[in-house]
């Protein structure tokens, strides 16, 4: 009983403006505590630099143009890899969801490939591509492919057959049926795939850039480690977190816009 009370408690105190701010209280508090702990020497700066030092390192790198360049390179790799892998995954999901023949032909193979952890391919990929751009793009695309493929396929398979029958009765052509019934019906599931894929995208990129790259955020972190610049290492990690959050927010906004018909997305 008291648990339920505490869960529903914030609702009654809903102040629109404050609502958006509440989620930032905990991160800000952590940073404040971190700063105090560093300044007082409770946490040695060799282990963890103070937030102010991290910020300073970021400022210096920003001035030298290095930071912007590395962020841009990572962002570019992430997006291109995502578009390629996601695009192919979406295409296969559509084809296998809509055509029995295509499904019989490719699904088993894809399911087998899925069981290979894509990061296990890194040594092979380096042998193939060196530490070229294509190595990173390949890994990101491969990692992103499966969540999008599986969720697109699932979404199309689970569209209400009664609605499809209704569409046919009302004389929809195949194209119309896809546009008006199948695709909107599969969309919620496709978004689940996109959210999963975004997580995998960053993870893959971090690993790939750390191991085999000559630019990008992961490379910047590895360089800094060699020169014992712990503030830059921490900075890279924080930027990764920030970019991940940004990608997630973008997909949420898109979701809200396209799934506005779904009661689950109405503002409560």
């Amino acid at each position, binding site marked *: 009983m008291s648990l339920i009370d505490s869960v529903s408690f914030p609702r009654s105190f809903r102040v629109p403006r404050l609502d958006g701010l509440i989620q930032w209280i905990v991160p800000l508090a952590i940073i404040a505590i971190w700063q105090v702990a560093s300044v007082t020497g409770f946490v040695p700066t060799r282990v963890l630099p103070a937030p102010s030092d991290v910020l300073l390192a970021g400022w210096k790198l920003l001035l030298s143009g290095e930071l912007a360049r590395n962020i841009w390179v990572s962002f570019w790799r992430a997006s291109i890899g995502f578009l390629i892998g996601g695009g192919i995954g979406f295409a296969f999901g559509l084809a296998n969801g809509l055509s029995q023949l295509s499904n019989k032909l490719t699904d088993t193979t894809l399911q087998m490939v899925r069981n290979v952890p894509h990061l296990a391919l890194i040594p092979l990929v380096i042998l193939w591509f060196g530490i070229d751009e294509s190595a990173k793009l390949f890994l990101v695309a491969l990692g992103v492919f499966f969540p999008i493929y599986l969720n697109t396929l699932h979404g199309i398979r689970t569209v209400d057959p009664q609605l499809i*029958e209704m569409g046919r*009765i009302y*004389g*929809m052509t195949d194209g119309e049926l896809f546009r008006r019934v199948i695709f*909107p019906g599969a969309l919620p599931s496709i978004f689940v795939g996109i959210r999963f894929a975004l997580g995998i995208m960053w993870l893959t990129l971090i690993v790939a850039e750390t191991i085999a790259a000559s630019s990008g955020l992961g490379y910047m972190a590895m360089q800094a480690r060699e020169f014992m610049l712990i503030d830059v290492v921490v900075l890279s990690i924080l930027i990764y977190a920030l970019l991940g959050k940004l990608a997630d927010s973008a997909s949420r906004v898109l979701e809200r816009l396209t799934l506005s018909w*779904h009661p689950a997305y109405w503002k409560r």
Partner: protein
Amino acid sequence: MQTALRTSLPETELASRANFAPHARVVREERPAHSSGLPLSIRALRKSYGDNEVLRGIDLHIPAGQFVAIVGKSGCGKSTLLRLIAGLEKADSGSISLGDAVKPEDIRVMFQEPRLLPWARVLSNVEVGLGRDRASSDAHSRAEEALTEVGLIDKRDQWPSVLSGGQKQRVALARALVSHPRVLAFDEPLGALDALTRISMQRLLERVWRDQGFTAILVTHDVAEAVALADRVLVIDEGRIAHDVTVNAARPRERGSAELAALEGSILGHLLSADDRT
């Protein structure tokens, strides 16, 4: 208790709650009932699923514009017959003829579930019913007209998920009506509604049928509903039409009158005796 209380409301009260009549009158003056019904002839119709002989020779003629109700115990093949008529399924043998040059838009089916697209607003859902005319310039106004007919024009921009069960079914009815079909087949369209909503929906069905003059085929579990609405009640048993009962009561019919009650009793008798045999 709840149901008893609802059905015992006086008729006038029910009528005042089912207040979609005023909108409809406007439409009736604007658009004369030009789409007349189609006659329907079925000969020696058979349909099996594997070893299961569902329909074993249906012979039936329905004159244009007649309102026919089909009753029968569960699994006797009522939905199968309806799906054959609507062209959703192929017969094993026999024929169904619907007069000459039938367009797909001339036959419409309404199911127990409204089957609205959750991601389309009410008005676009109704536009779906226009079939090949969906893209035409008057699609909007025709859909609006159909929504007015069922009394839901003020819900045109809503998502289906905010509508009540009865309202969703009325949108489905508007979608079926918007192409001015000449045959309208209903597969237990009111099965999932509460008693009060059912009665107001029955009145709505009867009214649009009288306005538009289509041939109506209503599959129902509810014998009282069948005798209240139909000109003719068919009882299906063992894959054939076992009884063909004409309902002569004048319209508008008085629900629960002795005449209808007697008819209902005799049809129920047919159904129960069929049930005893199995």
